[in-house]
């Protein structure tokens, strides 16, 4: 139970529950419900169960909700179903949070801990006995896609980086890479900086911590709030009139709307940062379409699946990556048409959810294998790990293709 006057209690009590007319549309789209009877689905777990959640938490299977947000996106009545589920989960976990959920929620910690001995850590994480132990003790499935830590974090690369000669004429931007972009998906962050500089931007990279997304999706709101506030303070240290360009597909959603809508962080600074934050593809597409950039790309003959992650869809900007990549001659982008890859942040890491997450992503994995088994594109880190794990394909941020087309790799 939350303090009755808290944001969480308020969200739950808010009229949103009352908007539901039971049309069942959300149930037809929920990717988890489609693959397992264990999850009762968004209508039941969301607005219906919420009417009965007075007192102690009794419906523990609500934890099967992956928080992908698809239900909120499709509800014609504006019920904040996924948000209700998140808050109800936070209420439920308040007193009995599995230590596993605390551990995998701390992306930076995991990255930092693994870095100094990255090859070792990676090997250890992949080694069967260690993973069996991890499953037993921590509840992390032995086969779950684990991030691969790079030897050198992005911030170390950046410290030595010299701006390309092309940087400058298009103006200055702040680059937001998120903590996965610092420790795990380092190549993406480097590619993004090089693309931005090639297209004429001066790039600033202020020191930046974790947005707290994984903590939030695991119901650890208090810490998550502190983390997102700290990130806002970090980003504010850079000049405040600049656009913040992001490759961290889900973390940008945290800044744009989730911190406020789910955790009730009402903060002018957060709002200002959220407003200034732009997805890198959306930002570049807009500039190119306005004719403001010298967009000299070479032909790339490639057909590739692009999967729009749930978290990106929830930001309500369409699929800018698809339009951006289609500007490259020779590139055929096939939209995955799949709702969700299954991983949903840290959901698919958990041993009781691993198989579900795999089943959720199966249509997507099949599509990748059919279209191009070697390469696929997706904007968020954990989704890329999941697709890599289950298809064996190289899965990259869309910026990877642009980097190639610009002759940078």
């Amino acid at each position, binding site marked *: 139970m939350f*303090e*009755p*006057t808290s944001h969480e*209690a*308020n969200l739950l*009590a808010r*009229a949103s*529950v*009352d*908007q*539901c*007319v*039971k*049309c069942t549309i959300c149930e037809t789209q929920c990717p988890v419900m489609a693959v397992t*009877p*264990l999850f*009762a689905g968004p*209508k*039941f777990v969301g607005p*219906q*169960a919420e*009417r*009965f*959640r*007075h*007192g*102690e938490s*009794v*419906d*523990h*299977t609500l934890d099967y909700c992956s928080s992908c947000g698809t239900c909120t996106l499709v509800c014609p*009545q504006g019920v904040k179903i996924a948000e209700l589920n998140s808050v109800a989960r936070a209420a439920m976990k308040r007193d009995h949070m599995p230590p596993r959920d605390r551990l995998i929620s701390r992306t930076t910690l995991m990255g930092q801990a693994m870095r100094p001995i990255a090859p070792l850590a990676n090997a250890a994480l992949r080694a069967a006995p260690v993973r069996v132990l991890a499953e037993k003790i921590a509840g992390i499935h032995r086969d779950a896609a684990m991030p691969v830590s790079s030897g050198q974090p992005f911030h170390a690369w950046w410290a030595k980086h010299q701006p390309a000669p092309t940087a400058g004429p298009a103006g200055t931007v702040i680059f937001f890479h998120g903590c996965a972009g610092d420790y795990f998906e380092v190549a993406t962050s480097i590619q993004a900086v090089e693309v931005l500089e090639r297209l004429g931007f001066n790039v600033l990279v202020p020191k930046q911590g974790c947005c707290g997304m994984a903590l939030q999706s695991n119901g650890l709101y208090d810490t998550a709030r502190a983390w997102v506030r700290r990130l806002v303070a970090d980003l504010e240290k850079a000049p405040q009139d600049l656009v913040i360009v992001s490759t961290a597909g889900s973390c940008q959603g945290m800044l744009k709307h989730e911190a406020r809508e789910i955790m009730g962080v009402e903060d002018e600074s957060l709002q200002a940062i959220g407003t200034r934050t732009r997805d890198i593809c959306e930002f570049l597409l807009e500039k190119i379409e306005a004719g403001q950039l010298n967009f000299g790309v070479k032909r790339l003959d490639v057909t590739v699946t692009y999967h729009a992650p749930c978290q990106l869809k929830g930001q309500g900007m369409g699929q800018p990556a698809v339009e951006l990549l289609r500007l490259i001659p020779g590139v055929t982008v096939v939209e995955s048409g799949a709702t969700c890859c299954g991983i949903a942040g840290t959901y698919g890491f958990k041993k009781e959810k691993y198989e579900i997450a795999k089943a959720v992503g199966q249509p997507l994995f099949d599509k990748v294998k059919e279209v191009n088994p070697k390469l696929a594109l997706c904007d968020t880190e954990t989704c890329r790990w999941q697709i890599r794990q289950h298809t064996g394909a190289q899965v990259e941020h869309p910026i990877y293709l642009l980097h190639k087309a610009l002759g940078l790799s």
Partner: protein
Amino acid sequence: MRQLSADVVVIGGGTTGVGVVRDVAMRGYKAILLDRADLAQGTSGRFHGLLHSGGRYVVTDPLSGTECAEENAILGHIQAGAIERTGGLFFTLPGDPDPDWGDKFLAGAATAKVPVEEIEPSRALKLEPRMNPTAERVFRVEDGSVDGWQLAWSAAASAKQYGAQILTYTKATEITTAGGRVTGVRATDAKTGEDVTIDCGFVLNCAGPWAGGVAAMAGCEPVAVVPGRGIMIAADRFTNVVLNLCVKPADGDIIVPCHGVSIIGTTDVKADDPDHLPIPADEVQKMLDAGEKLAPGFRQQRLLHVWTGARPLIKDDRVAASDTRHMSRGMAVVDHSTRDGLKGLLTIGGGKLTTYRLMAEHIVDAMEDQTGDHHPCRTAEEPCPGHEPGRYFALNHRLKEREADRLSDQIICECELMSRTMFTDLLKEQPNATLDDLRRQLRLGMGPCQGGFCSSRAAGLAFEEGAIDIERATGLLRLFLTNRWYGLWPVLNGQQVAQAALDDWILQGLLDIGHLPAQTKEVI
């Protein structure tokens, strides 16, 4: 023609009658209860849902206050499962008509021995964030909410354990007498038309607002029962504590959270006929305004249903018949032996649902005064079947049950989390029930969609189970939807309109219920 016999016949299966038949049976009498319809579908199913702490009466009627406080505790012992211990708040507002009411309230509570604690408004707002934030003084009391149907059915189950017979859908038509004594009751089975005669030495008239007519069946001078009509409006639940204005009892001064709804009420207007109680639009508006005062924003809540009931107040010559509010709430037992020279008939009226057990004790004591037998009343000590002292109802109970069985059982009514087995089990016990009868015990169709989804499922299921034929299925479905609609349209606005439109598309557009074959006879 059915011929039965008993020591005592109880007429009326509201909470009063059920409490009476339980008491009579526990004292060792052979008892039969008759209701012309289902149990607790009269006033006892159309009330406000408040388990009084007594707070409401501490200034104007302290004896009632004391009785409520005592009975409140007793019901927690014998029928805890029908009660939610929400707690209650009485609060004063700036500009209240009597600025000293708060002090009178505290003093009255002390006299009436009603537990009251004055608390800081800020603390009260933590208990119930939707309380009017301008409250000046706040008093915390032991108000709760109570399910009249569960109360009645479990008391009936207890009575049956003591050998009582409960005959629903059996309407008393005549009380036979000979030589200044009651000799029996004639009745008609409403479902089959069969005549029923019961030989008995005593009749206890517990017909609530209909008690005047029942007394007349014995040829007595009419007992003037003044039905005091009141309306109540249920919003989807948004409060968890009973909210009361701390003023002299008036219209629309309480919001009760009960099951999945928060109920505002009520009004009090003299009615002529308890079978035809209107829901005037101006009273609806008055309640919505009152709701705004108790919990600002009330008008924006999703309103689900409105209903009306009539208080069974026995006419008291000291006040004008048109002003029923200020009559004593105290119960009145009319002894027809002194009044009409007829032995073996007592009529009871007044009271409250909270004090139903005490009313029963009084009338059965009065009966024994007349017969000269004396047995102790034990209804306060023994919990009713299915209830354990202190094991109160909580809103999340059904959620917990569905969490346990949802993989093996279907959910038929989604809004109220009613499973298929709950429905089919009760249907087996009561194969002649209407969907509304089943609703009262299972809450079928009482949530936000108001039967839009579950009603056709329920009718289909009853048919599939072989309990009813196709014509009855159609008839029951129509009747149920008509009754739901009757309580919905006077408050239909805002969010509920979208629901009504969707329900209409499903029921008319998809299922074409309007064009199902017409009924050849009335569905009961």
